Structure formats: structure tokens, C-alpha cells
């Protein structure tokens, strides 16, 4: 059974959803605390959404120096799966495990609503269950979600096909780019595809009784790691 560590920081608030989503797809999911110095044998490190350390200074800026982040970085460097959702994505960027940064939304408002994403990359630990071009509707909920990078980095991400999900207008009524992200980028990965960050919240859409199970394939992709389809 694939072991998934949900990394809890003071101020994480999507940790229980993330744990439950991982359990739903058959993973052995457990919490690790920000003061822990190991991932307790986990094969996947899942950094959930929330407001770690109150978003003080910059979103994710303080969390990246938590003791547990050393273990996360080592896990990532060894090729282990590391996934950051929302605040988790912000932390991964602050920790330089992913390039770019997430800054205040273009419209300044906190944006909380469903968005349509187009899956552009399927060779990652969290999107292997999709087909390239799939459209998936999951919510965003963030104030600092505008992805920015310098022109060279942006060109590299696009040139190497490292954009994992992009905001898309699948039908009227759902805004295409909710926060002003460069190139409407909603999620990116490293070259190997084992480190992925995304602003939207698939863990909130894993049960039809709660609205939709559209986010489940992200977690099925993770659970497939345990089946040996990826290491």
C-alpha cells in the first residue's frame, strides 16, 4: 500500500481533505508535523493547502524553513513524489523545488470558485491517470495564486512542456484565468515529473456526494505509483 505523508504546518487547513482523498484511492495516508525531520517512510509527500504561518511575510516563505522541509527536499532530490496544492505549491516555489513564484491575485480579491483546467502534461506523479487535453473542473481558493516567473524561466517551462495544468474556458460562466497567472498557468512540474505544484484543489472534489469526483484522477495517479507503474 502506497504510503502518503500529508505534511501539516501551523495553519494548514486542507490537510484532512488531502488525507481523505489519498485514503479513498487506497493509500496508507498519515500526517507528519512540520517539526518532524523525516517523512516516516512515505513514498509521497503531500503539502496541503492552507495558510501556513499565517502567510506572514509571503505565502510559504516561513514554512519552507520548517524542519520537515529538509526531508521533503531530500525526498524530491531522490526522485520521490512531492505534490503541493495551493499553499503547498507556494511553499515548493519558495523552497526552490519548483521555479517561479505565486503572488497576489491580479484582481486583489481572494478567489474561491470552480475553474476548468486543461491537463497538458500526463507524465507526472499526479496526472498519469489523465489523457492529455482532458478538461477537469475543480475549485480554486486563494489570494496569492498569480503564477509569475522571469521571461527565461517562463520560456523554459513552455519549451520543455512543464506546464501540468492550465486554466481554460471550457464553457461560458467559468472564467478562464481567475488570478492573472502568466500564460494562465495553474500548475507546473519539474523535468522528471516527480515534483508538482498546483493552485486548484482536487482534494475537494473526490466524492460525488459532495458535488463532484472530478479531482479523483489526480489521486488515482498517485496511488498508481504503488502499483509499480512509476517509481
Amino acid at each position, binding site marked *: 500500500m502506497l504510503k502518503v505523508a500529508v505534511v501539516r504546518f501551523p495553519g494548514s487547513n486542507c490537510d484532512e481533505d488531502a488525507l481523505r482523498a489519498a485514503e479513498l484511492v487506497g493509500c496508507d495516508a498519515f500526517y507528519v508535523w512540520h517539526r518532524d525531520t523525516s517523512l516516516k517512510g512515505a513514498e509521497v509527500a503531500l503539502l496541503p493547502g492552507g495558510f501556513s504561518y499565517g502567510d506572514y*511575510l*509571503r505565502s510559504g*516563505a*516561513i514554512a519552507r*524553513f520548517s524542519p520537515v522541509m529538509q526531508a521533503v527536499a531530500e525526498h524530491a532530490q531522490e526522485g520521490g513524489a512531492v505534490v503541493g496544492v495551493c499553499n503547498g505549491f507556494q511553499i515548493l*516555489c*519558495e523552497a526552490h523545488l519548483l*521555479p*517561479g*513564484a505565486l*503572488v*497576489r*491575485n*491580479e*484582481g*486583489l480579491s481572494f478567489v474561491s470558485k470552480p475553474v476548468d483546467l486543461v491537463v497538458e502534461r500526463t507524465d507526472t506523479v499526479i496526472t498519469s491517470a489523465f489523457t492529455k487535453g482532458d478538461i477537469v473542473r475543480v475549485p480554486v481558493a486563494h489570494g496569492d495564486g*498569480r503564477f*509569475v*516567473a*522571469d521571461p527565461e524561466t517562463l520560456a523554459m517551462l513552455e519549451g520543455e512542456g512543464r506546464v501540468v495544468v492550465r486554466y481554460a474556458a471550457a464553457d461560458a460562466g467559468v472564467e478562464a484565468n481567475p488570478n*492573472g497567472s502568466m500564460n494562465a498557468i495553474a500548475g507546473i512540474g519539474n523535468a522528471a515529473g516527480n515534483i508538482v505544484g498546483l493552485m486548484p484543489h482536487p482534494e475537494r472534489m473526490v466524492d460525488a456526494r459532495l458535488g463532484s469526483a472530478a479531482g479523483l484522477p489526480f489521486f488515482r495517479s498517485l496511488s498508481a505509483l504503488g502499483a509499480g507503474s512509476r517509481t
Partner: protein
Amino acid sequence: MTYRVHVRVMPRGGLLDPQGQAVEHALAALGFPGANEVRVGKAIELTVAAGSRDEAEARARQMCDRLLANPVTEDYLVQVEDA
């Protein structure tokens, strides 16, 4: 010696600064039409114990590079004075 350090962190030029834009619009609405190019950053103050002013500044710059500013999106300015 103790030195007082002032750090000014600003969004990088060229990067959209929606806070600055909002403040600029508010200033115009208040009857200050000549107020332009508003940008909003942050100021951080601290004291640093160091052997010299240069050492204090070097330490402050390390703090900026590692934590106080994000090199992707922000520029910083460090000023050091005797505490």
C-alpha cells in the same frame, strides 16, 4: 556593536503590482490626479549585532537573499545605521 537595519522590499519593476494600481486609483478618486506610478512594498526593521557596519550590512543582505525578499519577484534595499 548593535546596528539598526532598514530593509525596503519592493515588487520588481515591470511586474504587475495590483496593490499599487488600487492605491493609485484611490488617490485619483480622492482628488490627487497627479499621483502616478504607485507601487506598494514593505519595510522591515531590525537590529543586528555585528563587529562592523559592513558586517551588519552583509548579514542583512544574506537575510534578504534567504528570507526577507523573494528573488523571483522582489528587489530590496538595505540601509544600516548605528543603533
